[in-house]
């Protein structure tokens, strides 16, 4: 533990010899908060099970219901299930966002945030710790989605290496969305407000190339929206690894948008944290 910054001796007559306290290192602070975040998620089974099960249910249903879409001229020469597997990763990322946001909002509402503010914990460490916890959950989710997809017969065109890149991309996407959840929590301070945004996020997944390739979307307005919707590129980046192999452009756009999402949400969340964590 580093002893940079403040050192205070805490005296207590009648107790054991006083303990010298130093400001914990950033790593230690982040680790403590991340550990708490992970414990909280794994102890609330509904928070873990529902985000796993719901996207997989939709994947199973849509993967079968839309099999006929393969017959659309121009549809990629893969099963619809292969085509659809990318979507659960994005839906899972939304759940991660809402959970991360709701957790932080609950801390603010309950006053636990103030308790943390009274310690030497840095705002950046609190944010990083919350997001770190969200990343752990995203890892588990992504592994499950990929495992179920492969078990159901989906082939990963880019091979084992591509599967690793897919996991990295999906975790990065989840990280970006978790930043959004944290931003909403810090900005509005209530779980209700965070959850109120969930339908809006859900909408962005639908108004994308989640169901059909963009060039096959018939309705002009829908195709335009999907083209400008960054979620389309996130989905297409993951999808390219599953159905195409190594598509440089799709990956560049997917990673690019994921990094941009992460950078923007983290930056805004950092500012919101400074405004929320008011201490002299």
């Amino acid at each position, binding site marked *: 533990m580093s002893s940079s910054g403040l050192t205070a001796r805490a005296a207590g007559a009648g107790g054991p010899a006083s303990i010298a306290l130093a400001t914990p290192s950033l790593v230690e602070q982040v680790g403590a908060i991340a550990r708490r975040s992970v414990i909280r998620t794994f102890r609330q089974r*509904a928070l873990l099970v*529902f985000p796993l099960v*719901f996207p997989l*249910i*939709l994947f199973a*249903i*849509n993967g*079968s*219901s*839309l*099999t*006929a*879409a393969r*017959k*659309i*001229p121009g549809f990629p020469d893969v099963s619809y299930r292969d085509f659809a597997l990318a979507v659960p990763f994005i839906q899972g990322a939304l759940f991660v966002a809402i959970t991360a946001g709701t957790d932080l909002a609950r801390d603010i509402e309950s006053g636990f945030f103030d308790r943390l503010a009274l310690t030497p914990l840095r705002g950046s460490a609190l944010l990083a710790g919350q997001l770190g916890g969200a990343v752990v959950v995203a890892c588990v989710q992504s592994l499950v989605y990929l495992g179920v997809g492969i078990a159901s017969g989906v082939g990963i065109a880019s091979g084992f290496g591509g599967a690793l890149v897919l996991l990295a991309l999906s975790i990065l996407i989840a990280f970006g969305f978790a930043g959004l959840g944290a931003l909403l929590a810090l900005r509005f301070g209530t779980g209700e407000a965070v959850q*109120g945004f969930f*339908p809006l996020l859900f*909408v962005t997944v*639908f*108004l994308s190339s989640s*169901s*059909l390739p963009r060039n*096959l*979307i*018939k*309705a002009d*307005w*829908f195709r335009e929206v*999907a083209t400008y919707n960054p979620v389309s590129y996130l989905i297409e980046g993951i999808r390219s690894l599953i159905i195409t192999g190594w598509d440089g452009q799709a990956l560049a756009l997917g990673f690019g948008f994921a990094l941009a999402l992460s950078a923007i949400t983290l930056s805004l969340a950092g500012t919101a944290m400074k405004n929320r964590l008011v201490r002299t």
Partner: protein
Amino acid sequence: MRRFYFVARGVAWRSVHNTIANPAILLPSLIFPLFFLAAFAGGLSRIADVPNFHYAPGYTAFQFAFVFLQSAAFGGVFTGFSIARDFDSGFARRLLVSAPQRSGIIAGYALGALGRWLITAVVITVAALIAGMDVLGGGIELVGLVGLGITMNLVAALWACGVAMFLRTEQAGALIQMPVFVVLFLAPVYVPLSLLTGWIHAVARYNPATVALEAARGLIAGSPVKLALAFVLLLAGAAIMSLFARRGLASAERAG
């Protein structure tokens, strides 16, 4: 009978009033069906180009039938959320204490669900017509369509009522919602039954929601199919769910 009526009317009035007075409740119940209509009819309209996809009114009407019934079902589901909230806040206990005829409470919630859904039904129908939906059915067929919606709404509301009264907490939300969601989506949502393959075809074939959906699509197309069967199934569902809701009420009464 009078007491039943007064209790039902009071509960129904509160339900409808709270919805209209609270945009946070009203707007999602309007926006979500509109959104689904836009997303499915807009985003998936190319599906109609699939060989052997035959539906005379077009894909917008094809999806409208699903969204119409889905909004009816979810109108019932949202009522379950309200009931669960009433238990969490303690208001349900007040109702149980003051209602002289408690079965009127269930009827009231169901009527409230219907009232709320009718608002949604008007909005999404107008939106679909503005979007250019073709309706080949006449007045009688459209009455039949509304009838399907009403009975679907009743089945879902009674289901939601039962679950909410058994569990008596807002955390029952997922349990209320998920089965309804899954049953609806295990029907031919995107393509007709004949174009489904694999396990989904097997499940959809025996899914009562499929019968209701095909009946609704037939009515819009002006060629009713399986209408009697759809009503029989839905009314049977409503009868079963009303027993379930009654059992839920008894459970709530025992809990005090």
